[in-house]
Every structure is written in C-alpha cells, then in structure tokens.
C-alpha cells in the first residue's frame, strides 16, 4: 500500500517533466516524495501548471483564491493590494493583540500601570504596543482606501452590489474596533476621546441617551465602560468582523472574482 503510493508519486513527477532526471530532481523527489510530506501536502511541489492549480485548490488557506486569474488583476496598480493589506493588518493586529493581552488587565486600577510596565519592563513590550497601534491606524486607512479603489474601478456594480454592502459593514466594524481599543490604555487621551465619542451617541433623538448609557455602562466613562470596550475589542467585534470577512471573501469568488471590463 505504502509502496504503491510512493511509486504513484514518482510516476507523476516523471510523466509531467519530459526531460531527464538531474541532481535537482533527485533532491526534489527526496524532499517532497515521501510519506510525511505527502501526508501534509497532497499535491507535489507546485512546479507544473497542474500542481500549481492543485496547490491553490486543495489548500484550505489558498483556496480562497481562484486557480487562475486575469492578467490585469495581478498588476499592483489595479488594486494596490488594499483589500489584502487590510486583511493582513487584521491578522497582524490579532497576533500582536493576543500578545498584549498577556500583560493587560482591564481594570481602572491596573490598566494604566500595565501599559507603563509593558513599555518599560516587558521585553519587546513597547514594540508590540507600537506595532499594534500603528497597524490599527493603518487598517482604518487601508480600509478607507480600499473602498475608494473599489468605487473608482466601478467594482461595486452588478453582480457585486451585496459585497459592497458587506464592505460598508466591515468599514463600520473597523472603526468600532479601533474606537474600542482607543480606551484601553486608560490615559487622558483615551478616556476623553471616548467621552467625546460616546457623547455623540448620546445626542441622538429619543434612543441616544439610553444607548450611550448601555455602551458606557453608567453616566461617565469608568470601570463598566472599560470592561465593555475591552470585551468588545478582544472578542466581540473581531468575531463579528471575521464572519463578515468570510462572507466578503466568499462573495468575491462567487461573484466571479475581481471586476473586469466588459
């Protein structure tokens, strides 16, 4: 059984490459045509068109892509990678955010001290916090610019209307993620920015003040607001954003990939 599969693998490689086997090929077979490698990656190393398509189609992460793509969509100036960068920043923020959570307790007595300790006592703590902060600002910018790119390339037109709406929801979630994170350092910048921001919510007719009260958990920004914003920031909003991102990416594929001129 094992032997059969190994032979099958060798056979595939030999039939797909018409030239004779050199040192590189033998090295290649030694690395990629063994039981362990094949248990992880079912197709061979993607060096033939067939395997390159298999690599994309059979990999859970890569299969968000189609296997083929129109020539113009690879040009950097067509998209400036803005949607992909927004997703990349989301991933970077998740990783640095998890590391920051190790050192941060969302309590008004400790939060500020924890940030100070993070900046001074924790190895690479300041760097982690800086990366998280700049990536957060960066993500707001890339999401806004992505929206502009999609608009000016007319990529929201049928059949992509709904994905544009999902994108608008993701824009709102990005702003809310950034806004909830803004309070966590518990410094003067944080508490007053959130006070100003939540007061805007409170100014809505009829439902404004009750909503502001629920959001802040009291009459002023304090412990209740901190724990609410923290919970929303580290789990509630990221989960929601992940759900909408899944739909967003899925719909790109379902709607026929990136928009093309007719």
């Amino acid at each position, binding site marked *: 059984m094992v032997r059969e599969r190994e032979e099958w693998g060798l056979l595939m490689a030999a039939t797909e490459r018409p030239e004779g086997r050199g040192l590189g090929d033998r090295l290649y077979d030694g690395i990629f045509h063994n039981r362990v490698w094949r248990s992880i990656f079912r197709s061979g190393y993607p060096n033939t068109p067939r395997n390159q398509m298999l690599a*994309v189609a059979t990999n859970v992460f890569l299969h968000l892509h189609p*296997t083929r793509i129109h020539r113009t969509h690879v040009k950097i100036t067509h998209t400036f*990678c803005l949607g992909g960068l927004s997703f990349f920043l989301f991933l970077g923020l998740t990783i640095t955010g998890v590391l920051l959570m190790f050192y941060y307790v969302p309590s008004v007595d400790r939060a500020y001290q924890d940030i100070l300790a993070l900046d001074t006592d924790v190895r690479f703590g300041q760097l982690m916090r800086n990366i998280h*902060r700049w990536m957060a600002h960066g993500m707001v910018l890339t999401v806004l610019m992505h929206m502009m790119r999609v608009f000016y390339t007319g990529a929201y037109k049928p059949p992509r209307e709904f994905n544009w709406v999902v994108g608008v929801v993701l824009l*709102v979630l990005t702003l809310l993620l950034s806004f909830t994170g803004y309070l966590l350092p518990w*410094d003067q910048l944080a508490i007053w920015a959130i006070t*100003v921001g939540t007061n805007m919510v409170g100014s809505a007719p009829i439902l404004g003040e009750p909503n502001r009260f629920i959001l802040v958990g009291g009459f002023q920004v304090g412990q209740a607001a901190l724990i609410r914003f923290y919970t929303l920031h580290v789990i509630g909003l990221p989960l929601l954003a992940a759900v909408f991102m899944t739909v967003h990416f899925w719909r790109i594929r379902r709607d026929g990939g990136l928009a093309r001129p007719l």
Partner: protein
Amino acid sequence: MAVATPAAQAQPASQAVRGRQRRQREEELLVWPDLVFVEFISAVVFTITFTILAYMVDALLLDRADPAVTPNPSKAPWYFLNLQELLLHMHPALAGVIVPTVALIALGAIPYFDTDNEGQGEWLSTARAWPITAVGAVVGAAGTTLLILYDAGKHVQVYEMIANGTWSPDPDAPGFVGWPSWLGWATNLRAIQNDISWPEELTRVPLGSKVLRTDLLGLPAIDLDVNLPAVLVEQIIPVTMMIGLPLLLSFVAARVGLARTKRDHMILQFSGFIATFLTLTIIGTYFRGAGLELVPYTIFVGDH
C-alpha cells in the same frame, strides 16, 4: 443605461455568466505563483515597514486617566474628528448620529442606484471620469473649507483687514472700519439666531400645549416649546446645505454637460463626499485648538 425593468435587472447576472464563458485562457495567469508570491512579498514588506515604524515612533501615552481633569481641547479619535467638526456647526443629534447614519446608508446604497455595467474593472474608465473626480474633489474640499471659514467669522476679519488696510486692525483705534452693523446677521451661522431680533412668539412656539395634545389621548402632556430661530440655525439651514449643495453641484454639472450618466453623477458625488470627509477630518485634527477655536493645532505639542 439600464432601465428598471425586470428584464434589465436580470441582465447583469446573465452577462457575468457569458463573460465567464468567453474568458480567454491566454489572458489568464496561474494564481500560484503569480498572485500568491505578490501577496507574500507585500506581506513581508509591510511587516518590515510596520516593525521599523514601531521601532522608530512610540505610541502616544499621556497621564493616567482622570475624570476630574478635562483636557482642552478634548478630541475624539482622528477618524471621528470629521463628526466632531460637524458638531460645531449644527445640532448634536444631526452631526453625531443622523448625518453619519444617513451617510453610511447612502454609501451602502450606491450599487443599487448605479446599476449600469459601464466603467467597471478599470480605474475611472468612463468618459469624463477624471475631470468629474477633480471637480467633485475640489468643490467638496473648497466648499467645506469656505463654510467652516464663514462659521468662524473669518470673512469679517478679512473685510476689516482690507477696509483698514492693515494686517492686524485695532478695533479701538480712531477711524476703525468694522463689519457693517446691518450685516451683523452674516458674521456666522449662529448670528442669524442671535443678531436678528426675532419676535418673542417665534422663540417659544408652544408645540406641546397647542399642537401635540397628548393630554387629549390621556397621556402625560409634553412640555415642548420650540425655539424656531434655533431650529433654523441648528437644523434647517445645515440640512438644506448638506442636501442642497450636492444637488446643486450635480445640477450644474449636468447643465454644463460634465455629468451625463448615473455613473458620472455617482463619481461626482462620491468624490465630493470623500473630499468633504477628508477636509473635515484634517480641520478637526490640525486646526481646532483650545476651546475648539479655528487655530493650528497638534497634539504632540506641550502638555505631556
């Protein structure tokens, strides 16, 4: 242009299917390696960029939060400063909630208005798209700036400078020429309420006891006296401006032949919106100092 008939609505999907069928293979590349590697390289480049940025510039941390000490000015995060800027010029409910809600709904509704298939898949590919973008952006940015300057009474300062022939006119100096008093209502938006002697009845319109007679329904009476001049300044004029000026822009652009299709008007309005959004954000961030006065400001100066 698509007409809103069932047949026309069914058209886009079938076109997409046909488009897929006549897709030419030689026009296509394989995602591995041509796309996957581009993505990988940009991820690496951006990781390095952000690490270097984070190494060089520290995130801001001010003093510990103190509810008793209000900084002057207190500002929202930068991406909400556009709304905070609006707050200075109109009713808080309008600036803080209604305008952003309506703006987001309008943004989401764009594809349901602009259903033509023309101009997709390429940057600004319809005829006149670039000039329309430029006009929308310039009008949005300049219009917003002018309105803000007006509400800050800057035109009064400019008038006094020109009338007195000096950069810093002294109001106490003999022969000082000031803003004409009969134009007092035009010094800023609020002056329409404060500088005009409105009849007493208009400032206390008893809606609660005369119109909305909830007591007749057996409900508690509403104590609602409406100050009409305040409503005019805080709500009616701003709403008229925010709806009227974009409509006027589209109207003029249509008359001079700049904007002809739905996509043209979409580009015009979207560009105007983005320019307005950016102008409000920039002014809210860099030109609102203590007391939210219109002066140059940066948070990195001084107090921490």
